[in-house]
């Protein structure tokens, strides 16, 4: 038998040193993250609330104050500061300077061209119209899909969009549809954007599905919002 060749061995790593390094770094990093999280939390929450407030004022014209309402057991109740345990969809009611109820801002979401689009839109139950919308979250292509925030014809067709209820008050008289660019004929149609066909259609679909659900409920429970 020949002599076994010695395998060159590297100095065996001392597992205690490795453990010490990893645990030490882990603790330092965890501390840093927790400190930053706690430090920035109040400001982030404040900014988020501010952004939402701004969006509500954007979609409901001529309002001076807003209040959050939660939909539970078939009626709307004001969402208090301490009622975080309540589960249910939240809508935001807007009032003008004379405490008159103007309309409701509702969140809706749907599939766009690139991921989910989240919007906030205003609904005026008296006129039975959509008053406007604001994009809360979107990953649409810059320069094309994001025209939904700037295309004038499109925006004009959404503000004032007709969402008349049917006679039985169970749904919409006419479903909201998105037409091709320049082919809008009826007040319940959304003017499409060429170059952002899928995205503009997605907004129309979001409005259609969300309104057919909410419009009958809000129309019938308007008194819940009165001050």
């Amino acid at each position, binding site marked *: 038998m020949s002599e076994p060749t010695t395998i060159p061995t590297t100095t065996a790593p001392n597992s205690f040193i490795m453990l010490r390094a*990893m645990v030490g770094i*882990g603790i330092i990093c965890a501390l840093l*993250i927790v400190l930053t999280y706690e430090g*920035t939390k109040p400001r982030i929450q404040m900014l988020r609330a501010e952004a939402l407030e701004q969006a509500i004022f954007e979609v409901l014209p001529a309002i001076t104050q807003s209040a959050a309402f939660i939909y539970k057991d078939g009626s709307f109740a004001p969402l208090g500061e301490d009622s975080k345990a309540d589960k249910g969809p939240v809508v935001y009611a807007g009032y003008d300077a004379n405490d008159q109820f103007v309309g409701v801002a509702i969140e809706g979401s749907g599939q766009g061209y690139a991921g989910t689009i989240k919007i906030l839109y205003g609904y005026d139950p008296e006129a039975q119209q959509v008053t406007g919308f604001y994009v809360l*979250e979107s990953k649409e292509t810059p320069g094309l899909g994001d025209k939904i925030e700037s295309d004038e014809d499109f925006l004009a067709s959404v503000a004032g969009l007709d969402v008349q209820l049917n006679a039985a008050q169970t749904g919409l008289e006419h479903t909201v549809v998105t037409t091709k660019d320049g082919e809008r004929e009826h007040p319940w149609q959304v003017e499409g954007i060429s170059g952002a066909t899928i995205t503009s259609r997605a907004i129309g679909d979001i409005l259609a599905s969300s309104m057919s659900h909410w419009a009958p409920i809000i129309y019938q429970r308007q008194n819940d919002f009165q001050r």
Partner: protein
Amino acid sequence: MSPDKRPIAPGSQEPTSTDAFIKGLWRDNPVFVQVLGMCPVLAVSNTAENALAMGLATCFVLFMSNTLVSSLRNFIPKQVRITAFIIIIATFVTITDYAIQAIRVELHKSLGAFISLIVANCLILGRAEAFASKNSIGKSMLDALGMGFGFVFALFCLGAVRELLGNGTLFGLMIFPDSFQEWIVMILPAGGFFTLAIWLLLFNGIKTKKATT
């Protein structure tokens, strides 16, 4: 990756020079010379503001992680060094993410997923491995600043050109008259490649000219 040719002596009190700073900013520019970290360079340079914010965020992470890696370089055994570096980098990326949210929600919205992707930016891990883990704290900090600002500069070069041609604006301010027809392609992903190619051409042109004279 640029090998550091100077003798490596951890902990030695070698005088730090501005050379390390200039190196990253110009001669070894991370984008135009080393072509590192292309993902954010191409993706988030569609406007000057996004490019600048992304550059500064990366610069901050690079600076902090280089500093920490360098100060812990004798404490981290080499078998687990990459894991340790990644944990340190990920920590500072998380911190940056919170910080940007606290500064402006809108900005966080437009940078989106690319903030978390700073973790995977090879520039940062590259500097930690090639420089900070072998050099003193002072030198590592200077190196990070040089590389970081080189990155900011490069991103800004791309972002400014793309926003100007693709949208007619700079930092949201209208530069060109209304009659200007925007080149939409410039703010689409393809525009990132075009702009990068033109800048690379320009930089290499300057370099060869310098080398021949």
